[in-house]
């Protein structure tokens, strides 16, 4: 966990070399403060449909959500097989996650908020635009430096830690939806009158099958 002072010091260090730094991006958006809220308790109704914000309030600003959406879509863009992360509600999920009153989520909150602010600060530093306003090659230029922690330069280590966490959240939020299920070829969750297991041809191809005891 990082306190706010450390966060701001870190941001200012990054900001020191920024020619066109918009101070708002730094001062307003890195706050890790979270309003008090209750969780769903030990006995929530399980059969109703919940949306982010139904149980505790969402807390990301419009600017934070813009950056969050842009980064989600860089991580999981739409393609000919499935929609983008933003279009299946991953931004709402991430907002719900970082706004949640539970310990694991509270640990993630400063990582995500600082990370989103860093993405904008870095985008401003390199290209004089917010991350969400960059074209794809420029977004990738930043992400390529932070997408794999073991390979990241020392000055990007912290941002790479954020990226790994944010990618896991995006992946988790995406592939847990029906669209994500479809993309992966998950075709279960339907009642069947019988379950026969894998097709014999596939087993044979893999060199597997029923064996004598």
């Amino acid at each position, binding site marked *: 966990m990082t306190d706010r002072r450390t966060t701001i010091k870190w941001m200012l260090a990054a900001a020191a070399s920024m020619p066109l730094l918009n101070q708002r991006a730094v001062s307003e958006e890195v706050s890790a403060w979270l309003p008090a809220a209750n*969780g*769903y*308790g*030990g*006995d929530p109704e*399980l*059969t109703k*449909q*919940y949306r982010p914000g139904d*149980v505790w309030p969402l807390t990301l600003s419009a600017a934070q959500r813009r950056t969050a959406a842009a980064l989600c879509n*860089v*991580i*999981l*863009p739409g393609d000919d*097989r*499935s929609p983008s992360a933003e279009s299946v509600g991953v931004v709402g*999920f991430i907002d*719900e*996650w970082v706004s*949640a009153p*539970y*310990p694991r*989520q509270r640990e993630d909150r400063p990582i995500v908020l600082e990370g989103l602010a860093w993405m904008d600060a870095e985008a401003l530093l390199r290209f004089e635009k917010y991350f969400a306003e960059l074209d794809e090659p420029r977004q*990738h230029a930043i*992400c390529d430096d932070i*997408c*794999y922690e073991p*390979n990241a330069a020392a000055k990007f280590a912290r941002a790479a830690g954020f990226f*790994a966490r944010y*990618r*896991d959240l995006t*992946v*988790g*939020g995406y*592939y*847990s939806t029906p669209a*994500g*299920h479809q*993309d*992966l*070829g*998950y*075709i*279960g*969750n*339907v*009642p*069947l009158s019988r*379950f026969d*297991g*894998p*097709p014999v041809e*596939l087993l044979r191809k*893999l*060199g*597997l*099958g*029923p*064996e004598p*005891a």
Partner: protein
Amino acid sequence: MGYRTNVVTPAAKHKQYDVIVVGSGAAGGQTAYTLSMEGAKVLMLEAGRNYVPEHETPMFQTPDQAPLRGAATPEKGFGFYDATVDGGWTVPGEPYAQSTDDPRGRFAWWRSRMLGGRTNHWGRISLRNGPYDFKPRGRDGLGFDWPISYDDVAPYYDKVERLIGVYGSSEGLENTPNSPEGCLLPPPAPLISDYLVQQRARRLGIPIIPGHRAVLTQQLDYKRSPALLHPGNLKAQKIIAAHMQQRAACFWATDCGRGCSIRANYQSTTVHLPPALATGNLDIVTDAMVSQVELGPDGLASGVKYIDKISGKERQAGARVIVLAASACETVRILLNSKSARFPEGLANSSGKVGRYLMDTVGSSLRGQVPLLESLPPQNEDGASGHAFYAPWWGYQDQQKGRLGFARGYHIEFGGGRRMPDSGTLRGLERLTHGSYGKKLKDDARRYYGSFVGFAGRGEMIPNEKSYCEIDPSVKDKWGIPVLRFHWQWSDHETRQAAHMQKTFAGIIEAMGGRVMGAVQTDGAEAISPGGFIIHEVGGAMMGASPQTSVTNEWCQTWDVKNLFLNDGAVFVSNADKNPTLTIMALAWRASDHIARLMRRREL
């Protein structure tokens, strides 16, 4: 909602009860079932709320319909859709204490405050203890022997399997009992990953056979079984035949841990309680938190005191026989809190053994990623929600020769396949993808989804002097009831076993051509799950052959108070690697038959 009222049956239907059963899970459900079928008037008291699986089970909900995509939180420790109400590792207002801050000396206690208790969410794995498991000291000189043998319990395993429905097969392996013809349902079809584990583990000498789980792979035999379950009792036969027909066979979708609205797996609320209620002999009061058993001037248990959680008022109920089936630790807690001039150290505790020899199961796990399972064509692998195959313990001969460095065995549970993706399914993929994102990450996700196989060992813990619970001298719960304080210590037998599990799992993963995800933990003390984590806690009031060294006789009847019975896991003398629930039910049925016999003979 109507089902959230605390009296399931009309209050005080019966003025007098023959038996009070405290708890409504596997032990309480079985006890109430057997006794009400035998004509006894039974009052069941459950500390949690009423729970109606037919209405409340989230059968087809996808993770995106839940807060946080269904991820686990302290309020829903096994995920949002897990069938646990007001429970988990912590229950608000109902704490328990630890004797030390050292994590290795602590015990975690999973509770559930709902009708049916933990049977609503459990893994449904239903393995019989074998002959060795009842006489472990006779084999290796450690722990204790039970006062009963496998042959004493076998007829009750037969009955429980027929009643609740357990799939599996009889393979004739050492200390892994066969079930008589007609007891087991056919096992479900294995998945591709099951076949792969089977093929490769067998090359290492590890047997892989069909698992046993309380899931209906077909409808129960409602024509033949009722007469075998209740010989000579036509009313009971008729009731159970009707209920067997009301339970649907598995439709091969939705995780069993959510519970099952079509009653296709075992939970007390869908299997034991409905036929027991149909007899008209059972009353159930929920939100009834029992604090103590009362002792009459004749030295017999006269009733129980409980808190009505709705009104907060203390109430009393009386009966000829009191059965505690509140779960091992809660049963111990009630006994230790029931102090009197005659039993200053707690009821039925003249031996001083109440609270002693608490056991859990040894657990350790490892996950592998298997290239052979990558990019397979889509297919529905929901199946019976896991455990089509397992590996029973195979090292009895090596242990007899002293080759392993630990005395007792473990079985392996494993699972892979294209299960419903949730928020954690593809977590940490960068180790395989080297940090891909964008279209490449989508391709990687498609490639790796379904290529993981997880292994979990479940091993026997030997009871020891340093693992026990007692009443905390100062802490009370919000009802004013003193709470338990736990003491815990694994012995080398358990930690070495956990290290052996890790090596074995790594060996199987390698034999599958896979790579271990994470690290193989060779330090057993690090490899072993903390005490209580496997949620197989048993012991604390063990049965035995002598009142000096045990709390109950072989019928779960306390030596000190002859109308007080402990029908749950508290009486366990050892905790075999086999998951305890099936044995809890078999022993509860056996004890209940004995109670009915004694009541008929007017000895109770």
